[in-house]
């Protein structure tokens, strides 16, 4: 931190924290040393700040609950934040993507338009053929219009 940015006369107590953290340059540090030498209040403030800072810095090292890193480091097992927050459910994004793809496939099966099944109107066809045949005096095929195809619905 630049000591020339703030003159010694402009120093406020916030410089005490910077002083503790070694964030003052030589000029500012010397100015603050002089201020501390003449001010019991500033010395007391500095001591209090040092206690607080040391208390925070000496907080015990915390680590994640057992199993957390195993899950995080599992192959491709990067956890979806939203899913995890909703129900602490560990969901691989890749698995989620695979699930989405599967869902899309199902949707495709259900909703992709398919051609109507061919249902030939056999009765009409045979009738039509009979009419055409009758015009040609085809005796045999002229009888076809009277035939009801077995097992085929018109």
């Amino acid at each position, binding site marked *: *931190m630049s000591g020339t940015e703030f003159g010694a006369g402009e120093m406020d*107590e916030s410089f005490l*924290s910077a002083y503790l*953290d070694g964030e003052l340059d030589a000029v500012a540090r010397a100015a603050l040393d002089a201020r501390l030498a003449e001010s019991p209040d500033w010395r007391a403030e500095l001591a209090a700040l040092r206690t*607080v800072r040391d208390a925070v810095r000496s907080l*015990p090292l915390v680590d*994640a609950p057992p199993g957390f*890193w195993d899950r995080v480091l599992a192959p491709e097992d*990067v956890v979806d934040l939203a899913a995890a927050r909703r129900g602490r459910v560990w969901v691989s994004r890749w698995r989620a993507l695979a699930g989405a793809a599967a869902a899309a496939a199902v949707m495709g099966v259900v909703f992709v338009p398919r051609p109507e099944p061919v249902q030939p109107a056999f009765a009409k066809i045979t009738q039509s053929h009979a009419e055409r045949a009758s015009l040609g005096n085809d005796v045999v095929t002229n009888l076809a219009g009277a035939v009801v195809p077995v097992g085929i619905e018109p």
Partner: protein
Amino acid sequence: MVDGIPTWEEVAREHGSFLYRVAYRLAGNHDDAQDLVQEALLRVRKGLERYEPGSLEGWLARIVTNVFLDDVRRRKRRPADAFPDDPDRVLPESPSAEASSSELSQEVQDALAALPTEFRVPVVLCDVADQSYEQIAAALDIPLGTVRSRIHRGRRLLRDALTDREGFE
């Protein structure tokens, strides 16, 4: 590691504890810390190609801080999701004349978690993540003078909260 750039797995294995420690002190509880770390690692994974070898922990601290601040903003829009009190917290039933160090640590953690975000973040980055004021200023995109004043005000608030506690002088 390729060209000084670690793999995602190396980051998680070798710096995961650091990431978690910062996340826990920012969030104040394990559930949210886990969420923060997971999201931070996702961003690390996406951003590793752009990482320029340097202070890896500084880069990680910046990422997890951004994740935390994004979450704070999101929760402000949805107050029902505000960060809960630490469910793991075990408060002493009554003040003890001989407060154990673990109780004192818990009280310090509680006081830290109670700090307004604008003061807690720079204090955690400074005293937990061991970042310089310059790094903190860059991470939070605020001037150096603001970093200094916020750290100072944060520490004063902590002092006020802890002054009357047993075992804290």
